[in-house]
């Protein structure tokens, strides 16, 4: 009995281990990229293209917020961190490489009759001073405020632009990824959220019932982000701990090259100027 068990155990081990050595034998190099949930979907697409032309490379992308991108790049858990904002003063030890630009805008459910909100109204809603859509020209319905959880640069840029303190915000729901915010909002017609323009435009195109609102009367279009008129604008960065070399460098160069412009535009982000 013990022998059967042992045999079984060893056999199963055999099944598991070869894969492992096999892969090691082929020397497939892994690049691990983690961080901003805004950048992650875009980089995943870029990675797919990169893998197509370099089959010996495997690129793993995991999201979790820009802070994670910074943290993992510093700790060496990721070769490249994804950060959807400029580096802060205390992050200047890292090297940043922009690959595209994005904006942050307010989104509402498609069935919400409200067409636009002034900056003051948005601030009041997020501070909990306006609690009903009636006050801003909508139905008589309580407003569900969706906020990003800490560690996401979308939150930081949003609060910075509207001069809100994170302690003043009284959210009803906390979300992590852009997609989670869009999903929560699409299921709740009385909610308000702010997300990456790229993510929102892509979802709207896929048929998710949301709409993008202008900020300070500027429509959230790619054009307006590109020409700098849209007020909440940010770069999407790849960051590394050291000066990139080898495959990391090649990936960064690829992500900044003309080859990926189409992908970036498909995802409703603004490519680097030519």
């Amino acid at each position, binding site marked *: 009995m013990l022998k059967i068990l042992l045999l079984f155990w060893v056999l199963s081990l055999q099944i598991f281990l070869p894969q492992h050595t096999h892969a090691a034998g082929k020397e497939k190099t892994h690049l691990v990229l983690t961080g901003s949930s805004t950048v992650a979907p875009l980089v995943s697409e870029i990675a797919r293209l990169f893998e197509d032309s370099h089959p010996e490379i495997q690129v793993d992308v995991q999201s979790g917020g820009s802070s994670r991108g910074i943290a993992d790049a510093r700790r060496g858990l990721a070769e490249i961190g994804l950060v959807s904002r400029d580096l802060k003063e205390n992050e200047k030890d890292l090297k940043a490489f922009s690959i595209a630009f994005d904006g942050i805008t307010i989104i509402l459910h498609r069935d919400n009759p409200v067409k636009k909100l002034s900056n003051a109204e948005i601030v009041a809603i997020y501070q909990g001073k306006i609690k009903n859509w009636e006050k801003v020209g909508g139905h008589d*319905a309580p407003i569900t405020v969706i906020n990003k959880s800490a560690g996401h640069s979308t939150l930081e840029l949003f609060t910075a632009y509207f001069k809100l303190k994170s302690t003043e915000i009284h959210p009803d729901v906390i979300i992590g990824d852009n997609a989670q915010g869009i999903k929560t909002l699409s299921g709740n017609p009385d909610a308000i959220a702010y997300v990456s323009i790229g993510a929102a435009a892509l979802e709207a195109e896929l048929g998710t019932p949301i709409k993008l609102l202008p900020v300070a009367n500027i429509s959230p279009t790619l054009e307006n982000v590109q020409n700098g008129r849209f007020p909440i604008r940010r770069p999407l960065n790849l960051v590394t701990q050291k000066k990139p070399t080898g495959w990391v460098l090649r990936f960064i160069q690829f992500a900044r090259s003309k080859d990926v412009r189409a992908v970036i535009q498909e995802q409703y982000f603004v490519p680097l100027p030519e």
Partner: protein
Amino acid sequence: MSPCRSDRNLVILLRLLSAVSGVIVLLIIAFLLKEALPLFQTIGLTRFFSDASWHPTEGRFNIRPMLAGSFLISFGAMGLAAPLALFSGIFSLYYAPQKGARFYQGLITLLAGIPSVVYGLWGLLVLVPLIRKLQAPGASLLAGILILALMILPTIALNAHAALLRVPQALIRGAAALGLSRGQIVKRVVLPLALPGISTGIILGAGRAIGETMAVLMVAGNVVQIPESLFDPVRTLTANIALEMSYALGDHRAALFMSALILMAAVLVLVVAAESIEAKTVYE
């Protein structure tokens, strides 16, 4: 059993293997402590309760809202699930027709194995919209309580069933021979005797409720606040760890490990409580 000579190697091997399981327990505690200790040394324990708010990236570490969330959700769920589970046990043992009881018990066993993420999925897509119709935003303390109650109900029901089953048949037959009715036997004989076992089951269920992460995370809204009504969203300690772990650094990360330690301590207390009750069981 004193092993004979040829078994000495075997015993050494066994000792080694079981040492591994002991080491795992120690490792878990050691690693939680190791990660949490830096923060504990710099700010001490009191600031987890006295700080103004939970903004760990800005150095404010008040975990009271999460403690409240965990406490309210778990106890709410226990309050709903425990009586139902007890009734369910009594029903399937003493009231259901034989075949029905087998089916019913099989169903409960099956339900106990359903992953929490499936309960969470159902809660998110069915329950939360229903509650939203009652009062926005839907994802709330109430949703958390209901889903968690549903989730732990089968487990407690199985425990209660097992505890009732352990009441010696002879006593029940004896009571029946005295001409007591079914209701009287259950109330006066079975329940008092099974009470320690049932309580143990309920306490262990509470442990599971406090530790549950995914189902609650999916339906409770995750806003850090002490709720004022059942319809307010809340965040539990476990959800807080799951949500913030991905980007937590330095003191923030340490604070999350600290809350893991608090969870461990709570579970330890519950286990010891359950064991001391179990030890009082008269029969067996």
